[in-house]
């Protein structure tokens, strides 16, 4: 391979941040010049490399490179947004003009505007998020080939592969507003993933596995990633039907995070002020089992969702949203807080590292305790209605009878109202999955309808 391709540029992050900050300043100046009474801007620059292999051969090499900025202007309490990937000489002027044009036609809303100046983050902690991976195409290819090979060799029932993928990305995001707040956050994100296909006389079953981290030295051994994908795929062979009925249902840790995310959505500002939540006026009320506490840790070093300030420039801080099952705080940005007559919780852009805090137990113990029911390892579809709490999704997993795993299960649905699901959580496993924004172990729910 000829070294003609640009590697993900070993850009000095401080220099990149300085140039983005300079651009953000010019955009804010232009907004003021064109008549905005307040403005905020987000600008980003990220680049990366994605290498995919399949059946031992290089399949794709992708060089990613994304730049752009978005501006929100306010004219009194009217608002307009515009964004562009254009970096040309007229881009700033034209984009500011487009945003102001929008603001000319939108209607005033007293809840609009920047977050209060007093709430702007002052000391931004060093979150240790920037760990570039010095990996080139040949070495990424080799790593992906080894990942896939480990999966293919794991079991002779592994008959096919969607391949393995190694990805690395680095980026810098700048946020500034007309209070004078202007900060840059840079970070890296690396991953290795693999998708294996197992088959028997009844057909094929795919399963994937991945590892992701800020620091390449924190990645799970890539050979294990391939093996785990294969182990999971083989584990799905031999599915048998089950009887429709109501049973205990355990959400395995990788899918439990999704279950928790619906609860967080239901106490998020936008859903609340639009009355699109089954948890309206729920502050201080029980929304989950008293065993469950949901805590946000925005300043965790190397955290995948760590941030020193939110999308409004407001200081992020550790806090508890659900405390012993009771709603302790909504999840608010400055707009939704004003709509609800409250104060922002520093969550513009969502939550930043969410931990499910509970008395954890070994998963085997939970399985033994659940008697007869379903351990869910796969979920499909969008059957979640936050307005009513109605939950009905496609699922697959392992049938548990008398506390013992018996056989894989496929093509079933699980259904219940979310309010009953969260209040019916009776156990949390110690198998915490830390690969996403929500860190949780497996969650055991007392009862749901399983249909087959």
């Amino acid at each position: 391979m000829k070294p003609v391709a640009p590697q993900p540029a070993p850009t000095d992050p401080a220099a990149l941040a300085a140039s983005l900050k300079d651009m953000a300043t010019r955009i804010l100046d232009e907004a003021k010049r064109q008549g905005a009474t307040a403005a905020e801007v987000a600008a980003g620059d990220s680049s990366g490399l994605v290498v995919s292999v399949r059946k031992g051969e290089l399949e794709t090499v992708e060089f990613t490179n994304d730049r752009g900025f978005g501006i929100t202007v306010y004219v009194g309490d009217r608002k307009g947004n515009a964004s562009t990937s254009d970096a040309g000489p007229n881009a700033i002027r034209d984009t500011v003009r487009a945003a102001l044009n929008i603001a000319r036609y939108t209607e005033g809303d007293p809840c609009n505007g920047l977050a209060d100046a007093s709430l702007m983050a002052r000391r931004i902690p060093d979150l240790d998020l920037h760990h570039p991976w010095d990996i080139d195409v040949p070495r990424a290819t080799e790593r992906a080939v080894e990942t896939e090979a480990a999966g293919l060799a794991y079991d002779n029932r592994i008959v096919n592969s969607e391949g393995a993928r190694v990805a690395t990305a680095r980026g810098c995001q700048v946020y500034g507003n007309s209070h004078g707040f202007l900060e840059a956050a840079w970070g890296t994100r690396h991953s290795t993933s693999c998708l294996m296909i197992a088959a028997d006389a009844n057909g094929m079953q795919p399963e994937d596995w991945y590892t992701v981290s800020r620091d390449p030295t924190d990645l799970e051994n890539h050979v294990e990633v391939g093996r785990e994908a294969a182990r999971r795929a083989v584990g799905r062979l031999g599915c048998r039907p089950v009887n429709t009925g109501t049973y205990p249902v355990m959400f395995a840790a990788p899918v439990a995070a999704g279950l928790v995310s619906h609860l967080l959505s239901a106490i998020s500002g936008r859903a609340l002020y639009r009355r699109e939540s089954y948890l309206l006026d729920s502050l201080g009320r029980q929304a989950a089992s008293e065993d469950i506490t949901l805590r946000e840790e925005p300043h965790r070093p190397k955290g995948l969702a760590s941030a020193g300030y939110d999308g409004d420039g407001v200081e992020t801080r550790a806090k508890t949203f659900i405390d012993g099952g009771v709603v302790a705080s909504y999840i608010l940005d400055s707009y939704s807080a004003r709509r609800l007559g409250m104060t922002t919780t520093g969550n513009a852009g969502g939550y930043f590292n969410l931990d499910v805090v509970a008395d954890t137990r070994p998963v085997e113990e939970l399985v033994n305790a659940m008697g007869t029911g379903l351990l869910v390892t796969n979920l499909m579809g969008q059957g979640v209605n936050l307005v009513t709490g109605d939950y009905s999704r496609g699922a697959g997993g392992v049938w548990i009878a008398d506390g013992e795993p018996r056989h894989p299960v496929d093509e079933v649905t699980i259904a219940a109202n979310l309010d009953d699901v969260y209040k019916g959580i009776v156990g949390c496993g110690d198998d915490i999955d830390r690969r996403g924004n929500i860190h949780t172990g497996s969650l055991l729910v007392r009862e749901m309808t399983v249909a087959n």
Partner: protein
Amino acid sequence: MTTNNVIVSARQALWDPDEIGEPEITGMLGRLSAKDIDTGELFFQLLRHEAWGLEDGKVKSGAYSVDRGVGVRAISGEKTGFAYADNIALPALSEATEAARSIARTGHGSRTGVLTGTTAAVRYADVDPIASAPEDAKVALLHRIDTLARSLDPRVSEVVVRVSLDCEVNLVVTTDGLMSGDSRPMARFDVMVLAEQNGRRERGSSGGGGRFDTGWLFNTDAADEYAREAVRMALVNLDAVDAPAGAMPVVLGPGWPGVLLHEAVGHGLEGDFNRKGTSAFAGRMGEVVASELCTVIDDATLADRRGSLSVDDEGTPGQHTTLIENGVLVGYMQDKHNARLMGAKSTGNGRRQSYAYLPMPRMTNTFLRPGASEPDDIIASVDKGVYAVSFGGGQVDITSGKFVFSATEAYLIEGGKVGPAIRGATLIGNGPEVMQRVSMVGNDFKLDGGVGICGKDGQTVPVGVGQPTLKIDEITVGGTGAGATS
């Protein structure tokens, strides 16, 4: 009309601002060429988007965006090199080209020559939806629909209305010296309402659109109909009872429930999964994969539809492709890359979310041909089951064939009659199995209203679906209701 004049205007929009012309492009194609590069392409694209949203009785939000860039792809056997740039200036184009061709093991080729424009029949007008109405008219329309929705029933408590307008111009040039372009309008209008009664809240939504400008909103009563439909659905759901659980007959209504075809067979017939042998339909060409009542088509040539394409994102003219004919698998959907590796021809299904993504085989408008049954007879044939008329979306596991789709408006069928509304429930089945259980197909064919979005491997593209009323003898319904039998 052909896309010929589109190429001229696309070159102006995409190349002129950076003073790029044919010599620079052919030079770049030369650099992209190498002995072991089978084919390569430059995909230039300008995307403009405008959206206005009303909530709480006010048009509070509006947004405008511009994205202009180029994606460069080089293919050598099964290998693909890809890079993109968010500007079209020569240094960025050059850098992306060198990156994409880095999969080559040989030096630069030496191609010179001229670009040959290729044309196709146009499937939609070259219009700009954003400029087709002044801002104040769009804002006034949102208000009118908000007022209408609230006036229809006192139980309507919240109304959200949104209009979203896109204008895309693209130009594809390949190392074969071929050049094609497209100008693609897209307009979409959505109404979402909440209705409240005795402390219970339910949602209803409706919307539509297609590849045209805002004329349909201002010159027809389409927007009023979306409002009426959203309110009707919310009110129906206020009285919904728990859905049953278990395997039972299901009748799907016409139009948007065609998401069944999209999930149960569509994805599984995309060329890439079949080339790799990872689709539940792989190696089954010529076999019976559905009941003989089923003929499934993917058709990019329908006028003005959301999924229609005059040419796809690789420059291949949009086509009408039969996938399943009377139950027999007869065709896959192909892009150029997979077609070449399978010894087939592209079916014009090569699509990409934008210049920053690689093209893949994707659906356009996918539908089931009408049958002979009267819709009333289909419902009357079911003693106990479910009649589902609207869905929120679906998902498929292409390899195992299992798929889900979630009903947002459905009813019980009791003794051959449509009974009470039921709460939203997910249906789950296995594509090839469920399609063999299609036992009645209606004569009331309908396309969806124009709101479909399809996701695959992290890329979304607009699509259409359609079908007549049809009956599936048995599929699992994921309710919670007392109908659950152990």
